[in-house]
């Protein structure tokens, strides 16, 4: 806009500042609470200036929630989910866009429809399957042939269990499909003339070209996986597989305990840090991947 309207500008800035306060306010509260002592944090009204107990609180939170292994678990599962989602999305979109199978539209819309079925909706059947992966296979074989198999694979309390049910991604597939569709058909044909088979074309041409797309997806998916609470909570009973989000539960004061919100907030700060770093590092790519004007 090239209009000169000082009043409108002032109003725009006012709205932006308000928005900023709305977004950053809670963070400031978390931060100040994390630096205060128990006494300060429980004072009414709440004091918005930082105190001097930050490292004490962080230390307490780390010990109490056993955050070391929990953060490691979160990091491992989030990275696995992120990678898995990107690989799966890139490959399934590749199949949908580049292979002229008559059913590809059906498959695409089926994938797309799963957007309406987030994990929360299908959590019980998913748990069932995770507890006994081969149940449907056994059932099919038994009804078809009458043979009873004793195949079993239990995903509960394992990294595969934490990761696999979260890996399918309609959003990612869609993002990749849109990206592939912006590429000229001649690119695939030129590669064909150059002798590249489909997988070669995918690895040599599509993957490097989709780098920004991939990093954008990585950002979203890492944060998504990191923030998972319901699924890890439900399927890990073994404390050694607890993720940070689940471990955080130990820091929320219970009814008859001391209301140590300063420690909870310190823990929250620690857990928030990795996704913040990822977003900060990748945000340049993230924006470019979503705007995607690079050819």
């Amino acid at each position, binding site marked *: 806009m090239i209009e000169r309207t000082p009043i409108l500008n002032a109003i725009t800035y006012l709205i932006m500042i308000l928005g900023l306060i709305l977004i950053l306010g809670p963070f400031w509260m978390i931060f100040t609470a994390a630096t205060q002592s128990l006494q300060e944090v429980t004072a009414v009204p709440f004091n918005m200036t930082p105190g001097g107990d930050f490292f004490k609180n962080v230390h307490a939170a780390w010990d109490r929630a056993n955050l070391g292994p929990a953060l490691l678990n979160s990091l491992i599962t989030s990275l696995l989910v992120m990678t898995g989602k990107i690989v799966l999305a890139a490959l399934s979109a590749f199949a949908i866009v580049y292979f002229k199978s008559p059913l590809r539209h059906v498959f695409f819309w089926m994938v797309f429809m799963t957007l309406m079925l987030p994990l929360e909706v299908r959590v019980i059947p998913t748990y069932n399957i995770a507890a006994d992966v081969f149940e449907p296979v056994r059932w099919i074989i038994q009804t078809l042939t009458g043979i009873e198999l004793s195949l079993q694979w239990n995903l509960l309390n394992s990294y595969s269990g934490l990761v696999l049910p979260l890996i399918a991604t309609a959003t990612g597939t869609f993002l990749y499909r849109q990206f592939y569709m912006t590429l*000229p058909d*001649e*690119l695939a*044909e*030129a*590669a*064909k*003339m*150059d*002798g*590249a088979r489909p997988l*070669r074309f995918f690895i*040599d*041409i599509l993957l*490097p*070209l989709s780098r920004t797309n991939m990093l954008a997806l990585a950002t979203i998916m890492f944060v998504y996986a990191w923030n998972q609470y319901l699924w890890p909570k439900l399927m890990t009973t073994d404390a050694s597989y607890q993720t940070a989000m689940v471990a955080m539960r130990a820091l929320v004061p219970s009814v008859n305990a001391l209301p140590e919100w300063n420690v909870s907030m310190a823990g929250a700060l620690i857990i928030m840090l990795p996704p913040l770093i990822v977003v900060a590092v990748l945000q340049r790519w993230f924006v470019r991947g979503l705007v995607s004007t690079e*050819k």
Partner: protein
Amino acid sequence: MAEIGIKDVRKTYGSTPILHGVDLNFKSGEFVVILGPSGCGKSTLLRMIAGLEEITSGEISIDGKVVNNLEPRDRGCSMVFQNYALYPHMNVAANIGYALKVAGVPRAERDRRIAETAKIVGLEELLDRKPAQLSGGQRQRVAMGRAIIREPKVFLFDEPLSNLDAKLRVQMRVEIRRLHKRLSATSVFVTHDQVEAMTLADKLIVMNKGHVEQVGTPLEIYHRPRTRFVGTFIGSPAMNFFNTTIAPSGDHVLLDGIKQAIDPVLGGKNVGATVSVGIRPEHCRLVPAGTVNSVPANVDFVEELGSGRIVHVEIDGMSFAVSVEEDQFFEQGAVAGLQLPAEHIHLFSLQSGLRLDDAPVATRQPATKTVAA
């Protein structure tokens, strides 16, 4: 170097026919240009040779081997695309060498051949650039380098010059011709630009609506167009036409009530036929009004070319374009006389659009096909 045989090749998309049975033979080392208006099926035919398009029926063979069911990589063709289709993330060297990389050629050998190819297409200085940093003509060269490095038996060009500006187009045309002379691989070049077609072709194929209209050398096609369509399509400005009937004497037709002489032998065989009479603007003559054997014509408007001019005249509601020399001037609204030399008149049947001719020189190609079949 390879011959290409195309036998009764058809293509339909769903129920829409695109090619209605094409029969062609390209000799080894020939530069073949397929010319036609957009939608005539010329690109489809090229893509079928390349293997990028399924062949609905018929047979395509390269070097005597039927390639219908071969993958593009096994056909020994390489192709230059209209929009170049360079790999945007690879530099020029990687773009040119990609085919070799896929084929598993060792690095040293690959680098040697990339350098060699870059020299042929004049890109030595630019090997590290990305396609986005190149001009249109340079991209075109990369695309050609990518095609020649594989030392293919056949080069396929799909309107490679139509994205370039006029000056560059002329320059690249010369380079392509020079390259062909040097490599002498069979080349098939698809275009809708008749100047490109005339200047490049050893053998010119004119297509229209999924049919081959004529096959011949550029001169044969210029001088003896087999159909009215070919007559209109080749030559600029386009051929002039008027419809009339051949007089009982067989030696003239009437243009605005005035006798216009035609070849008496040809006319004699077609007395009473309704014909479309065609004559090229460069073969018409404008003389002062009232000259013997001329038809009075009103000068409609004049297009200046510098080296000459195109005068548009009007006779009885029909308009004729006439190319005249640099020293001939005509005023708009003036009356001049139009002369149509009989030796330059083409006669086409009004019903079939086919040339009335006793010796169909230009149709040699289809004739050999009937013998073979």
